């Protein structure tokens, strides 16, 4: 491979890692700071991606209408797709939160896992909604005409980095303020937090909604990167568990760790793909499962030997005044 090819490959790797970093930041609000056991990230991933897809594409007309069903198509700019994805995910998180946030953490986990799979199956089976298993294609990309299409990824990487930084900074500010302190108190001891006058349900809801909005952004960024989405993308493995591994690896309760974990684990994940390419033919068919196994083992190793992750939570978090 020539040097240009390697760089292009690294750029595409960084784009995916950057998208996953956005998801990790969202999960970090919910789990890292509030202790909400959300294992339905894929649900928000899915909703965010579809929402942005339908906001930014036109509703098919003429002969296409025979082949592509989608419930609406607004043909609006990319930025509105991103915002729409975030808002819709926020609203859905709010609705999910009403019955589930009163549950204890393991039950919340079961509920979110179930809801995420339900979303995926709805998109898969309801053809009128978003074209069923064939999914949606031809999503627009911003600043498309600016450069040669084969160099477009550089522009998209810049967009991802900008969004990631904005998300990172806004979360950091909120977490280091009294708002974040309340979330962390709830994570540590709900009853004590309630006795100190904090409305637990209210704050958990804010955390769930804010985290889900960030995840919705991640979903939208993914959709416009691949330009085509279908329900089989949003499986628990790619949509939820790998993000958990990233956050655990990087350091739950640390936003820098969340970003670092996304890049490290995505690097390892892609690296194992190269390794499995070297396997003999007889094993190649099993290679994907070996990779899944490796991710599972990695999670176990982290939880046993370094439960705080690469970068643990800082000792002093509310430090606006220093």
């Amino acid at each position, binding site marked *: 491979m020539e040097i240009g090819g390697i760089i292009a490959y690294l750029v595409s790797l960084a784009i995916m890692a950057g998208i996953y970093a956005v998801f990790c930041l969202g999960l970090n609000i919910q789990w890292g700071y509030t202790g909400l056991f959300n294992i339905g990230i894929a649900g928000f991933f899915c909703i965010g991606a579809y929402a942005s897809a339908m906001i930014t594409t036109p509703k098919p007309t003429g002969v296409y209408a025979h082949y592509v069903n989608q419930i609406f198509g607004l043909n609006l700019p990319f930025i509105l797709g991103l915002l729409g994805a975030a808002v819709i995910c926020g609203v859905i998180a709010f609705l999910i939160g009403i019955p589930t946030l009163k549950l204890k953490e393991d039950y919340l986990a079961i509920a979110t896992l179930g809801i995420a799979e339900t979303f995926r199956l709805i998109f898969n089976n309801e053809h009128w909604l978003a074209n069923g298993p064939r999914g949606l294609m031809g999503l627009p990309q911003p600043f498309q005409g600016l450069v040669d299409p084969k160099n477009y990824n550089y522009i998209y990487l810049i967009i991802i980095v900008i969004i990631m930084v904005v998300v990172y900074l*806004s979360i950091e*500010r*909120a977490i280091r*303020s*009294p*708002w974040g*302190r*309340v979330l*962390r*108190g709830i*994570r*540590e*001891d709900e*009853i*004590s*937090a*309630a*006795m*100190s*006058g*904090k*409305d*637990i349900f209210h704050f958990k809801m*804010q955390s769930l909604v*804010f985290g889900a909005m960030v995840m919705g952004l991640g979903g939208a960024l993914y959709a416009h990167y691949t330009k085509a989405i279908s329900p089989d993308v949003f499986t628990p493995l790619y949509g939820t568990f790998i993000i958990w591994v990233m956050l655990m690896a990087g350091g739950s309760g640390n936003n820098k760790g969340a970003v670092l974990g996304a890049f490290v684990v995505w690097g390892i994940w892609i690296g194992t793909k190269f390794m499995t390419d070297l396997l003999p033919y007889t094993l190649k068919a099993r290679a994907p499962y070996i990779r899944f196994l490796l991710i599972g083992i990695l999670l176990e190793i982290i939880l046993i030997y370094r439960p705080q992750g690469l970068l643990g*939570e800082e*000792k*002093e*978090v*509310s430090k*606006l*005044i220093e």
Partner: protein
Amino acid sequence: MLKIEEVVKSFGGLTAVCECSLEVSEGAITGLIGPNGAGKTTLFNVITGHYKPERGRIIFQGEDINGLAPHKIFQRKIYRTFQITREFSQMTVIENLMFVPEGQVGERIWNTWFRPSAVWKQEKAIHEKAIEVLEFVELIDLKDEYAGSLSGGQKKLLELAKSLMADPKMVLLDEPGAGVNPTLMRKLIANIRKLCEEKKITFFLIEHDMDLVMSLCNPVIVMSEGKKLAEGTPEEIKKDERVLEAYLGGQYR
């Protein structure tokens, strides 16, 4: 100040608090004693909104606070501590204290982004107050330690310090002396007395350590089998036949 009228709370077939009526008067340190299982902690949980009573009324400063959620009870300026301390262990001591004040500007997420100077200003004031409180309870040297790494006795002091951050009118202490060594205990007693006298905070405390109760509390209320059994000065309680019977059973009479 706090009036409990015929409160009933049962768990399944067990009636933990059974038509209990009692009154706590303002400015005093009222002790609540009684044998294990008398319903003391349950009564605290009912007062602070963790359990809803089946019957009865709880009146604080003339208002019915029965059935309010715990955070609403806090807003009425009642603070309670727990028998087994419930600190935020992965947060520093000073963060534990800064958590408490009510209605902080920076608790609204919008304000953290759009009104940073107001958040900052209040945060600074809360920080100063936390330092002051930590100096009062002499935990200042530990302010940047994780609350979880404190000793049992220090955690009791931390609970008291947290209560001070709330500017309470009334503090319910559930066994403040349990697991505290004698030196720390003296400090705790001195602190409670000082707070009652200087800051006019009313205390209502459950305790098994009779030395602490007899030296600190007046009046003392005795609970047994979910009801108030007796009330009086420490001396009166010590002499009360019914109290001895409740604690020791009838066989020693």
